[in-house]
């Protein structure tokens, strides 16, 4: 599957990136394609474009705060989880998709 994801945590310096790392590793190990946008202390990085989002099958939000520019995902099925879940139990998330 083609997956897009956004990670966002309050302080934006650690969990955002750990969650991104976990999602990427797990997705790849399960044979999925994934692109992860991080919303952290440096702002939005690896921003997901309209095209990329359109092509994706599903979106994952691993966030403890509001995801910025959420409206990009208006037509997408979104799986919302906490940042902790993405870090500690990423495999479970992919079972949901």
């Amino acid at each position, binding site marked *: 599957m083609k997956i897009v994801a956004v990670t966002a945590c*309050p*302080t*934006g*310096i*650690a*969990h*955002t*990136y*750990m969650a*991104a*790392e*976990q999602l990427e*590793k797990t997705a790849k190990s399960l044979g999925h394609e994934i692109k992860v946008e*991080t919303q*952290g*202390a*440096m702002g939005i990085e690896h921003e997901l474009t309209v095209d990329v989002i359109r092509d994706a099958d599903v979106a994952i939000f691993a966030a*403890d705060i509001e995801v910025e520019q959420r409206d990009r995902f208006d037509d997408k099925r979104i799986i919302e989880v*906490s*940042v*902790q879940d993405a*870090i*500690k139990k990423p495999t479970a998330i992919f079972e949901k998709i």
Partner: protein
Amino acid sequence: MSSRPGTSSAVVSREYTFRCSLRNGLHARPATHLVEVASRYDSDISLTNQRTQAIADGKSLLSLVSIDLAESDECHVQIRGIDAEAALHAMCEFTRDVLPACDEPPLPAPVPNVAMVVPRALRDTTFYPGTPVCDGVGRGRVVLLDGFAFPTDLDTQASGSIEVELRRVEDVFAAVRAKLAASYEAVTDETERGVLKAHLSIVSDNSLRSKVTALVNSGSSAGDAINQISRYFIDLFQSSDNAVTRDRAVDVKDIAMQLLKELYGDQVQQGHVRLTTPSIVVAENLTPSQFQALDKQYLEGLILEHAGATSHAMILAAAHGIPTLTDVSDACVRLANVETVIVDANCSLVIPDVNHITEAHYQRVKQRDEQRQHRLERYVGCGVQTTDGQAFSISANVSTGIEVAKAHEQGADGVGLFRTELMYMDREDAPTEEELFTAYAETARVAGPHGVTLRTIDIGGDKPVAYLDLNPEENPFLGNRGVRLYRDKRDLFAAQLRAILRASAFGKLKLMVPMVSNVEEIRWVKSRIAETKQSLKAAGQAFDENLSIGIMVEVPSVVYQLRDLSHEVDFFSIGTNDLAQYFFAVDRGNERVTELCDTSHPAFLRFLKTIIDEAHRHGRPVSICGEMARSARMLPLLVGLGLDGISVAPSAILRLKALLSGLSAAECRRVADTALDATDPREVEVALQTYHAQGLAIQMSEPDLMLTDSHSHSKAAAIAEFVDALYVAGRTDAPEIIESAFWTREETCSTAVGHGFAIPHCKTDAITVNSFGVVRLADPIEWGDDSDTPVHCMVILAIRESDPDRTHMRVLAKLARKLMEDSFRSRIMAAGDRIDLLNCLAEELHLKS
């Protein structure tokens, strides 16, 4: 009897109105100057505050202060007497040209370093808040100091004879005046002298005397009269809207107590106490005399209910470094039955309950302070070089003699700038050669091997030095100041030269001349020096034959005369504050344009490079003594420009030395080259940032932040241990705030990431440099949340809130990601000592090590 032409013996009346433009109103200091001017004339001079209709005698300090003339108040001046015309002229000139400049406080109000956060360990402890006056932590036995209520039980029966009572008044005033004058002569500390001077002017005040005398004439005893009139002024001052005036009420009280003590001897309860063990003195308020009388050997701290932060007693406390808190409500009552108390002026807390928790906390605080001091001490008494062996001196800028000895303790390589004008200000006459010599000789004695550079007086029309009779100028900064003044004030200058030369026999001194704009000026100065040397030699007085002479580079014209000036002087010191003003044509004090005066502007940097290169070409060292040198950010630039050193405020020295020891001169030169080529300050900033980013391994972490074998047994202890490490490493001055920030994050959501690892982190400007570290726990600890495994390793991050640094953020993001990898975690656990661990991390994160 002949009358001088142009005068008449008729009584004349004159009047005019002025508007008070003093931000803090007409308080004691400007009022003193006004009194000096008014007192030169026979005429009666009265000032009426148009807003309140209160009238003051222009020759009475107390009277002037009591009419509470505030900013924007209109004041009507009435002059009546034979010399009214001359008085009018002088008063007009004074209130128009001099008065507006009299606004700075004479004694620096204490500026403590405050955390303003309750330490986590003390969360559940009882404490009372206060306002810090001087930082530090003090612990001791509570000693309550009685208020100085006016004595009510004195035998104040009038003797029955008005003459006798008047005589008593005279004697008592004279006695107190004499005592104060004697103290004033004996004391060398400038802060104490300032207080004594203020007291002298109160005891000499016209209005105080005349009012007391009037009461006595109407039948009161001397004691009663003094009592009543003092209370009158005290009440008047205390009800002022002006905080500075309110603080002076205590000074009047102090004088009143001294007068009454003179009159009644031991019957007067003075509010003094003898300290015999380490004590914390608790009182409602404190007069300067009461403070001075306290044995400093046992005075560990002060707690006041309502002493004003700028009152003289508080200023003295700060000057003596006594941890002090004021505004502690009802302190006397609340601490009446407490035996031991702790004054934590760093966190603004009074701890009345000293138990094992507080003991443990302050033990920890003491330990980390000692460790921090120890770490910095390696720089005391020795110069520092860059990593590639370039020497760069860091000296101190001081204004008083006591700061000189302290400067060495604070790591200074000598004193690069001793501002001598302080001894000339706030007095009625010039200091004598002897006075100056005493001060300079003492300075020379403690000068150390690097010496003290005395800058000859740097005064101009902007500073009110009454006895110099300086004509007010339209543009004092472009006027008769610094060296330009010396020709007119030959005796003044001669006295200073003699004092400096004589003092040079006692230690290493250097002489530096301000405001030089051409070669001829310095040649003139050197001739005067030569004359002085001759005269001293003839009198058989010793001096340093090879006294080093230098000039301030602050007038731009000097920059293109460096070749010729190099033949005349031994060194150059760039006064960047004034040089930049003249360079950019900006008045730094003018808010509208001050931004244009940017010392990091490439044009100014090129200007500096010109100066440095030219001076070096002619074999003369150059340093900077302006504010730009103080900035840690600019240090690589200054080193890269080729300066031989800088002179800064003492408190900045150790930090700068630590920074310097990690710089590479070659890289600094590269940064400087880029900056010199820039078009605007922003490009300079980018160059600096890039430089700092390249030193990542050094900047973001260090061996002392790799706590490889921690024996902390709880999350709280482990975090505290790391916070202390940050503090000792100089990466924060407010450990309480950092600790609090870590906990804020902990309470938001768990920082455990599984596999026995946790990543506590925080975002706060209390950390001076974005940092990370590792705490490897000898015994795993409970993380206290729903997490599965106990934690045996913490990777801790602390980042700044403002000026986010992308390069640093990238490193931290990478670090966070790597923590998700088994192999990375294993490497962290397997690394040997601190250095190994740091190297391992540097490698994994691609940092330059």
